[in-house]
Each structure stands twice: as C-alpha cells, then as structure tokens.
C-alpha cells in the first residue's frame, strides 16, 4: 500500500477544524463549487461528467433488456457500480472493487431506489417477460474527497432524461435508435459530512476524509423525505449532530437540486 498523505497535513486539518476553519477557506457547512456536463459518452444511453471541487467523476448508463424478478413481473430495475480508478489518485489501486467502492455504490443506489426516483413500472416492456435493466457505472477520474456526493450527482444527472433504446418486434434493441427518455419522479440528493476535531464538516476533501474520525451521509428529497443514511469510518456522532446534519442535508439538497435540473 502506497502512503503519500503526510501526517503533517492531517494534523494541520484537525487543528484548523477545532478553530472552525478549513484549508481552502470554506465555511464548515459550505459545499465546493460543482459543475455537470452531460452526454459525453455517445455510446451510452446517458452520461454525465461531474466536477466537485477537484473531484472528477464520470457516469454512464447502459440499458439492457432483461427478465423481471419473479416477485415483480411488471418492474424494471437498476444496478449501480462505482470504481475509483488508479488514474485518479496515487493511493488508488486497480483490481476487484474495494469495500469502499462497493459501499459508495450501494449508498448511492439506496438513495435513488428508496426514494422511488425512477418509476420502475415505467421500465416494463412486457409483463412477466421483458423489462429494462439500467446499468449505471461511475468512475472517479480525480479523487479529492466526497466520492459519495459527486457520484450521486453524476448518477442522478445521468438518469435524468437518459435515452431509452428503441426495440424491434422481437424486443431486441435497435442500435443507434431511441424511443423516449427516462423521467425522474424525484431528485434525491446525497449529502456527506465528516467529523474532524469534534466539528462537523460538509463535503470533505481527500485530506479532510483522512483526518476524519467519523462520516455520515443522508439522501433527502424535495418533498421532505430522507431516503437513505449511512454512517461510516469509526468514531461516533451524537443525536444532536445527526439532527444537524439531516437539516443541513435538506438545505444543501435544495441548492444542489436546482443545479441538476438546470443541467
């Protein structure tokens, strides 16, 4: 395992946090600038390149015709995967998905699934026989912390208005032709925090994640629901801290949502 983070850097982050400050001058509850660029991968049914501070993530969607699960014959499904590419950071290694990559993918997936952002009934082709399965994979191109939120934004932006391939009489995909787009019913936004030096920091950078004692993510919707939560790393949060983060989640979620709609 390569280690390049200097402990010197980490202690600096903790020191600053105790004073309510951050290395990049942000407020503790301030998110970094982010941008969304859509439709980069022409072979994909939908794609989005998201930059959150220096973190860069690209997501793409491929739709396939599959057979429905026996207990939900009229519902399509989605499958979300995440990969932190070795090209994104000197400490990222190639190989099988690590536990972190799997966790991130599952948390992003949960937010979208539980909030019923996608109408799975709308993805039914022929009840009991054929349904759409959407495979969304996102890749980290440059890692500077908070892959959770960057990944979630890229997934949402990708699904939003993604093209649905055209089918022929035998329910086989017709290449390069499309029929309709995916419309999201809700836009669940994932917001992630870390606890450093006893303080709660929103949208951590890579170094802030290294300095963190605990991490928490919450997915919130525009109509007041929480769709997913995940506490990570060791450490702990008090009930008050979690309540604070949930409230912030709704607040920040609203801002992020506006940008996703515009993209």
């Amino acid at each position, binding site marked *: 395992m390569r*280690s390049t983070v*200097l*402990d*010197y850097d*980490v*202690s*600096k982050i903790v020191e600053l946090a105790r004073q309510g400050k951050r290395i990049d001058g942000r407020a503790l509850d301030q998110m970094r600038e982010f941008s969304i660029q859509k439709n980069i991968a022409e072979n994909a049914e939908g794609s989005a390149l998201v930059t959150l501070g220096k973190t860069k993530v690209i997501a793409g969607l491929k739709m396939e015709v599959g057979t429905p699960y026996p207990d939900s014959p009229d519902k399509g499904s989605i499958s979300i995967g995440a990969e932190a590419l070795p090209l994104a950071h000197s400490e990222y290694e190639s190989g099988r998905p690590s536990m972190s990559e799997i966790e991130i993918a599952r948390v992003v997936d949960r937010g979208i699934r539980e909030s019923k952002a996608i109408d799975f009934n709308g993805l039914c082709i022929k009840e009991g026989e054929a349904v759409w399965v959407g495979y969304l994979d996102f890749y980290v191109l440059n890692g500077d912390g908070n892959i959770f939120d960057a990944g979630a934004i890229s997934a949402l932006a990708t699904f939003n208005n993604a093209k649905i391939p055209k089918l022929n009489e035998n329910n086989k995909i017709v290449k390069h032709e499309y029929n309709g787009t995916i419309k999201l019913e809700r836009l669940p936004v994932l917001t992630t925090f870390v606890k450093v030096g006893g303080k709660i920091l929103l949208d951590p950078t890579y170094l802030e994640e290294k300095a963190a004692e605990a991490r928490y993510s919450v997915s919130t919707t525009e109509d007041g629901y929480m769709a997913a939560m995940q506490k990570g790393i060791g450490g702990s949060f008090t009930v008050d801290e979690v309540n604070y983060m949930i409230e912030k989640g709704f607040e920040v979620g609203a801002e992020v949502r506006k940008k996703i709609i515009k993209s």
Partner: protein
Amino acid sequence: MKKIVIPGELLSVERKRLGGNVFVSEGKIYSKVLGISDDESDSASVVPLQGKYIPQVEDTVVGVVGRVVFAGYGININSFTESFIPKSAVREQLKVGDLVLSKVSNVNEMREAELSFPKRLFGGEVVEVTPVRTPRLIGKNGSMLELLAKGTNSEIYIGKNGRVWARNGNLELLKKVVLFIEENSFKSNLTNSVEDFFKKAVKGN
C-alpha cells in the same frame, strides 16, 4: 530566443556544449524533457517545466518524518525513496509529522539521498511546489527569496525538493505569491511581476 521544447525535439545540429536534460544522437542534440530552451545560448540545455525531485548533493531539502523505527527516522523528501536519519544525528526525539530541514550529503546509484545536518523546524507551514521550479523561487543570488521575505515579513526556507517552509508574517500572502510564481515561472520579467503583485496586495488591504 527562448521557446518551449518537448521530449525528442531537435535543439541543435551542430556541436555545442551540453547542459542539462539533453541527449546526443547521430551528432545532433535533442531535448529529453518538456521545458524551456534558449537557442541563442552557447550551450544546449533545457530547463524542465515539470518533474519529480531528483536529489543532488548540496541541495537543501525540507523533509517530513514519515516513520519512526528503533534506529532512526524515515524521512519523506518528496523523491522516489525515503531517506534515513539515524537517531544519533538529531538532538531531540522526533515523531511522525515533524518537519526537518537538512542537506543532501550523498546520493547513491539507487537515487537514495543521505541527509546531514538535520534541523528541526517548529511550527510554520509548508507549501508544495513543482520541484523543478524552486530555483525561480530562490532567484539569482537569492534575490527572489529576499523579495518574498521582505514582502511577507516571514521566515522562509526553500527546499529544492519542492517544499517551501515559512513561519510568521503574512503566510496567506506568501502562499498566494508562491502560487503566482509557480504559474508564471517560465515568463520573463518575473521579478517585476512579483513586485507588482506585492504592491497590489498591500493596496487591497
């Protein structure tokens, strides 16, 4: 005339004195790296624009203690390998994360640097820059370094390994100036630009 050259670019068809970062093939001189070359100079050499720190004897470097072992300390000097300092070489006990200023006394075939005269640096902050650009931060005869120290009232050490350590004074301003020099290191009239930068900064306050 100075121009940007890329690896493999032809610098001269005639014989010239050879400087750094060039190679000869069939009597012609080529650049090894992405950098700046001056074809009016009487020697062929290239100042690299990018690159890791390659230790050289006599270099002053700012190191960070990465490991503590029984016999001494593994010091990260931002190069290919760690350097080792025996416990006997330092007066006090060091711990991981401590900053040390020292001189490169020897470099072996594996590019491992031996460090001497380690001196602990207390407090302050470190700014990392592209190692090959540190000469610009120092300037001819230390002129740029003096300009930086005066303009910020800070105590500054510039490590050839791309680390600038500074304490006291206006560290925020220093970071901005260092970044400015980094981004404009290959442009002419840099000293004037830096002086202007300081003037504007003072006005802004």
